[in-house]
């Protein structure tokens, strides 16, 4: 039986939630942007009025204000967005147990088994659209198709507050005529390559020789060929079977540019403490330490290093991160942002190969110390216990809990299963 898959996309999600909470801004251009004071100065989302006036996601706050005088910028409230994201999922969950989130504001929903009872895919999509609007005060655009790729295409096709059906009869006229970067995974580089061979639309990809695409783009070429022809068979994941956490990381934009190794050491220790705490919270240990360094020109480097034993000890993470930094950063420019991440996670109870030259007794002590510090901070605040190191630059230490970024899962994360069957 042919599948019926919906892809629902909450339009201008962050901005819509803010608009809902601030009816006084009705009819005015609004954007959700980072805090100017601490220099997270970019636009995260803008409402349609602001978008029409040229405010773009990702542009700096001052750029946005220049493009659109009178723009209202509100700081993001992630907890509130998470709450609305949960409500959205609850609504999708009424129609299917196969709901797979793609970031906070998008989700696929496989309603194949509900179509007999609740009506066609289009009817269900309409009902979801109406329900979200009435209950949450947000608008969603929904795409309906027999595969995830075209469903996602459909939700992008007509916005906001609309339903687009892409079926076997219509996909050639709806999908194939659109420029190819409307297709998931056609980015700038792919676009450029294919354009140089005179290919511009999704239909061009669909009608190209798959071998030619393979030669040109490798495995991705074949994948895109399958995508463009509606041959994607990737299932929508069951509710609650999200991919396990792959890595835990914390990053921050510094209140001022860092210019010395000592300052970097301070920031790295702080981030590592927070990463270690989150590893313990989730009962993980990791073997891969990764740093991301962004300079004040906003270009960044990522470097990673495997350590000998899985760890959740802040000291070990910090030392590994610092060693990576010293080996790889040469101070061409001051540093604006840093991120420390631990990957290759395993359950903390997992047995592992001990290192002959490392005292496990000592490590256990370190670990207990981390826990003790965390408890003290939990009770008396983050400033109750600090490393001596932090005394050198109090303005770098954050006053509140570090912000944790929300990373959407990648479409390919669970492997690309398009070629099966």
């Amino acid at each position, binding site marked *: 039986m042919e599948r019926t898959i919906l892809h629902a996309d909450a339009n201008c999600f962050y901005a819509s939630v803010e608009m*809902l909470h601030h009816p*006084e801004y009705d009819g005015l251009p609004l954007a959700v942007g980072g805090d100017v004071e601490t220099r997270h100065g970019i636009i995260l989302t803008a409402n349609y009025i602001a978008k029409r006036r040229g405010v773009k996601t990702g542009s700096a706050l001052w750029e946005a204000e220049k493009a659109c005088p009178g723009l209202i910028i509100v700081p993001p409230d992630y907890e509130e967005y998470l709450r609305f994201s949960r409500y959205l999922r609850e609504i999708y969950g009424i129609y299917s147990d196969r709901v797979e989130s793609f970031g906070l504001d998008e989700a696929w929903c496989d309603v194949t088994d509900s179509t007999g009872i609740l009506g066609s895919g289009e009817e269900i999509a309409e009902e979801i659209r109406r329900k979200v609007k*009435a*209950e*949450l005060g*947000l608008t969603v655009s929904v795409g309906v198709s027999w595969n995830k790729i075209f469903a996602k295409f459909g939700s992008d096709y007509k916005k906001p507050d609309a339903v687009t059906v892409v079926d076997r009869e219509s996909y050639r006229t709806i999908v194939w005529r659109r420029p190819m970067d409307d297709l998931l995974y056609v980015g700038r580089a792919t676009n450029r390559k294919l354009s140089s061979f005179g290919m511009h639309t999704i239909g061009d990809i669909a009608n190209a020789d798959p071998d030619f695409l393979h030669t040109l783009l490798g495995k991705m070429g074949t994948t895109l060929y399958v995508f463009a022809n509606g041959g994607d068979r990737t299932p929508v994941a069951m509710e609650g079977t999200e991919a396990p956490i792959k890595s835990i990381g914390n990053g921050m934009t510094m209140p001022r540019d860092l210019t010395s190794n000592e300052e970097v050491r301070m920031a790295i220790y702080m981030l590592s403490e927070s990463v270690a705490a989150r590893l313990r919270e989730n009962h993980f240990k990791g073997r891969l330490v990764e740093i991301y360094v962004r300079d004040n020109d906003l270009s960044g480097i990522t470097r990673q290093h495997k350590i000998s034993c899985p760890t959740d000890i802040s000291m070990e993470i910090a030392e590994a991160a610092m060693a990576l930094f010293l080996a790889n950063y040469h101070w061409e420019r001051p540093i604006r942002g840093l991120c420390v991440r631990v990957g290759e996670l395993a359950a903390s109870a997992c047995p592992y190969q001990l290192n002959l030259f490392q005292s496990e007794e000592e490590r256990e002590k370190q670990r207990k110390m981390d826990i003790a510090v965390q408890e003290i901070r939990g009770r008396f605040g983050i400033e109750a216990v600090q490393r001596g190191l932090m005394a050198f630059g109090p303005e770098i230490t954050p006053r509140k809990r570090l912000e944790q970024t929300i990373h959407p899962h990648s479409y390919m994360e669970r492997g690309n299963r398009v070629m099966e069957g």
Partner: protein
Amino acid sequence: MIKGEIMMEEKGSERPNYKLYVEVGAVYEPDGTMVPKYLRLTPDGEKFVIDHIYRAQRSASRRAGGCGICYSVRIRGKDALLYYEDSPHASRWFVESRYPVPEADF
């Protein structure tokens, strides 16, 4: 949409678009259902007993701004909407009011 039916809008009167957080007395039934019984506009203000609950469902309040479980209720013979806003910052009750300051619409 229920809102149109049960909002009592007198001609010429202002639209109720102020968000007013209020004190609510609620009862939790053994099965976990939360039933609001009365509300006060100010802590020491008059007590408005909720005579009847027509229905409760999640709903957005576009006028006052926000979203929560919306109870359509009858108070002193008049219909009103009472919202339970379960926000991560604070779980509170609010009404859509015609006035920026606590003043009874009922």
